[in-house]
């Protein structure tokens, strides 16, 4: 049994008859202690996936799945009380913008101790000592004074460290990090990533790293899921996918990285933007932006399938790319 099992997850907003599917037909498994990266442009459904696992999609949003379990427990039908005892304890999450994710009215100590008190209890003194230890673990300088600080007195990097401390407070088995470095200064990003990896190693927790930045995923994750417009485009082991992408979208993403553009004057880009609620195309969701799109791509939506080339990888494309980087079986 995997730690996290998701089969055919759908998250819908808007009217029941013509819903907007923020996440569509998503499968995802995670093992204990594994790092999985989820990558995609803004609006591709990464965050919504994470929030739906946490039960944080509010009405009128609708979350449906054939199966969505954590350590064998059904995440969908779970009563609120049970979910609350699991959130922050077994599954924890940190968010993109640390400056707005901490409550401005309470001190760092209060917010840290609150998590501890809700899930394990203890005297005020013990809780405070634990909170202090947590701040030390996330390498916040001068932790004792920081305990009494209000969020507006902390820098972005510091706030994110507090968020991390709060997330790991109860030794979660799964940590979801939603763009943990995006809002931070470039100089702090690497440190933050290093801290997350170090904590993950020490505690053996599973880490779901959500990012729009392929290089972040490449450095950290063991497996990667590439999302586009709410669907999984390609999933597999990091080395496989980075060395030989089978989906044109992954290929284009990689081609836009500076590392792949050495010696060029301009970075390669993918024309267009992720389709929103009203402009999702028929057929393959990528077809207006795909340089290989054929007629079938504009009429039929491809299924996510395991390809013979590398048995571990899954790809959603009528013409998966071969090892030469060109589509196979393509007839124009």
């Amino acid at each position, binding site marked *: 049994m995997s730690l996290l099992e998701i089969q055919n997850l759908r998250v819908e907003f808007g009217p029941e008859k013509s819903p907007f599917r923020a996440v569509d037909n998503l499968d995802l498994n995670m093992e204990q202690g594994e790092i999985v990266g989820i990558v995609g442009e803004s609006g591709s459904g990464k965050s919504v996936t994470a929030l739906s696992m946490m039960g944080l999609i509010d009405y009128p949003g609708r979350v449906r799945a054939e199966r969505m379990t954590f350590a064998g427990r059904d995440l969908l039908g779970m009563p609120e009380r049970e979910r609350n005892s699991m959130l922050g304890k077994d599954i924890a999450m940190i968010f993109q913008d640390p400056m707005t994710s901490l409550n401005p009215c309470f001190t760092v100590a209060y917010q840290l101790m609150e998590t501890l008190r809700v899930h394990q209890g203890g005297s005020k003194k013990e809780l405070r000592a634990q909170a202090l230890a947590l701040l030390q673990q996330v390498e916040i300088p001068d932790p004792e004074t920081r305990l009494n600080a209000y969020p507006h007195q902390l820098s972005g990097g510091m706030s994110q460290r507090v968020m991390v401390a709060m997330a790991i407070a109860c030794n979660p088995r799964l940590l979801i990090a939603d763009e943990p470095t995006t809002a931070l200064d470039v100089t702090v990003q690497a440190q933050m990533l290093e801290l997350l990896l170090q904590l993950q190693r020490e505690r053996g927790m599973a880490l779901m790293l959500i990012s729009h930045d392929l290089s972040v995923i490449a450095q950290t994750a063991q497996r990667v899921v590439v999302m586009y417009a709410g669907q999984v485009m390609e999933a597999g082991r990091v080395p496989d996918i980075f060395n030989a992408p089978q989906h044109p979208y992954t290929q*284009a993403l990689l081609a836009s990285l500076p590392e792949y553009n050495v010696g060029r004057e301009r970075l390669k*880009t993918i024309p267009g933007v992720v389709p929103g609620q009203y402009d999702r195309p028929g057929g393959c969701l990528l077809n207006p*932006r795909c340089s290989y799109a054929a007629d079938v791509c504009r009429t039929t939506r491809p299924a996510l399938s395991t390809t013979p080339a590398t048995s571990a990888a899954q790809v959603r494309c009528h013409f998966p790319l071969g090892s030469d980087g060109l589509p196979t079986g393509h007839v124009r």
Partner: protein
Amino acid sequence: MSESTLTEMPGSAEATSASDAPPHPLRELMRYFFQNRGATVGLAVVCVLVLLALFADWVAPHSATEQFREATLAPPVWQDGGSSKFILGTDPVGRDMLSRLIYGTRLSLLIGFVSVSLSLSLGVVLGLLAGFFRGVTEIAIMRLMDVMLALPSLLLAVAIVAILGPGLINAMYAIGIVMLPHFARLTRAAVIGEMAKDYVNSSRIAGAGTLRLMFICILPNCAAPLIVQATLGFSNAILDAAALGFLGLGAQPPTPEWGSMLASALEFIQSAWWVVTFPGLAILISVLAFNLMGDGLRDALDPKLKQ
């Protein structure tokens, strides 16, 4: 984001520009306004009130002051002893309630209109001066406004009427003065906000004079909050005028003003409920209508909420 790009897809860009030409701002405003059911009802009621006020002479079954001595305190038509001659009954001296209420609409709207116009025009000028010249002018004007705001509006209005003497005209002045700080503050804040923008600088560079800058360039761009405040000011004015009338400081009998109608009917509260109920209901309905309309306008004009 590294993957995104500035190049639009040629096909889709043209398709959208053809079908979704940006609607005229006024039409867009109306669309948002009429989506709000409360605001629509408010506007409808306000229209009815305006029509009643304009055509009171034709609509009202009787004169507002004619006394039917044979039918004092006649109950409304649906109660025992009521007659269809006096649909909402008569008051203690035999005047037709319905007619007095209809003529009262005229007075209430007039009070609202005069006092809002007074405070709007004065407030806008003060606000423009404060926002435009800053420095000592600003401090002097805004301090005065702060002091006026520190006094509750009705208390200040009562004080002003106490000095000017009771009466309808003085009540209008008092209410106009009381609302002044709201308009002045709004205008000043909007002016300061607009002054920082480039279009003001560019017209200044183009040689626009101070007055032109103030009234032609900047003022129209501050109109939205002022319109909302003016609408809400109407409801305040009606309410305060009625309160002054009730205290005997506003319109004097036999003027058919709703507040003073209430005051003169006080002793009949036990015997004739209608003389007390209907004038209050008229005040409530008209104030509610203006508030609904003002809320709707604010929501429709607030670009933050549109998204």
